């Protein structure tokens, strides 16, 4: 079972790779919408990336209003 910290780190690594930002740019408390400047289609891409990586389904309404990696990790943890 992953810890919350491990899940957060894995999300940050996925986002770093997917959006091609330099390593170390993203932190657990960052607002990823602001920091990455992503639009609605990119949001859906990231959702697919997360679901495929963690092998879960994460309904959109469960992440509505979530904008930082740590809270996103908590939502994912509840589905693992």
């Amino acid at each position, binding site marked *: 079972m992953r810890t919350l910290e491990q899940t957060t780190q894995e999300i940050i690594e996925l986002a770093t790779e997917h959006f091609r930002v330099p390593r170390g740019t993203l932190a657990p408390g960052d607002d990823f*919408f602001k920091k990455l400047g992503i*639009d*609605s*289609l990119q*949001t859906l891409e990231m*959702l697919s990336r997360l679901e495929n990586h963690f092998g879960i*389904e994460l309904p*959109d309404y469960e992440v509505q209003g979530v904008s930082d990696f740590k809270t996103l990790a908590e939502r994912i943890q509840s589905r693992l």
Partner: protein
Amino acid sequence: MKSFTGKTLRWEWREGVIELTLDHEPANEIGTAMLAELEKFVAAFGALVPETAVCIISSARKSVFSAGGDLRELYATAAAVPEKERSAGVRAFLERIHAVLNALDTAPFVTIAAVHGACLGGGLELALACDMIIADKMARFAFPELRLGFIPGFGGIPRLKRDLGNAFIRDLLFTGRTVNAARAHAVGLVAQLAGEGEALRIARSTAAQITKYDALTRASAKKFIKPIPYDELRREIDLFCELFTRPAVMAALKKFVEDSGPMPYLP
């Protein structure tokens, strides 16, 4: 017409296969411009049918097959006319898109939607009119319409019910959530899963196999296993028009078109 390049889409016939490519900024929204070119496409079926085994529909846009009906245009058009005239305008549009999708649904060749990225609302309804969906593993499917106060209006509910039954439709409709390609494959919405960026290649390889079979047998088999739910399609148009003309829907659409946030399909 074996090839065509329009403002929102293009098609090209080659060795028994027509490839229809949606290419309309920003996200292949289906409004009057794309509808007119889709009508042109199905009008060309008469000449293409004798030489065509397969039609592949795909998108040239990054990260999206189609975001669905053009809600900005729908809102602008509806807002520009008196309330009592809105229903007639929407109905006329729906009658036209239903005619196109029914023609696609009953085409005597095999139709494949090669889907990558977002396939939402009317985009999913277009894919559902096809015989098979081949999806990139990053594809996502949804019917977000209930969140705006109406239902899918391009024939999506009757076609999904025909293909999969009711349980999955209720999940999609009542939550408005997007489901990933693996889930869509598990429930039978997606026929074949493709790796990232591979949906069109796999659709072409599938088409090459399909072209080997006898045309009459292929067309007869399709007609036999894929009846068109005409009564439900008619009722869907009526229900859509009934729901659409309420003030709450116009308010929800206004909020949607003015929202520039990262999840505008969520209220």
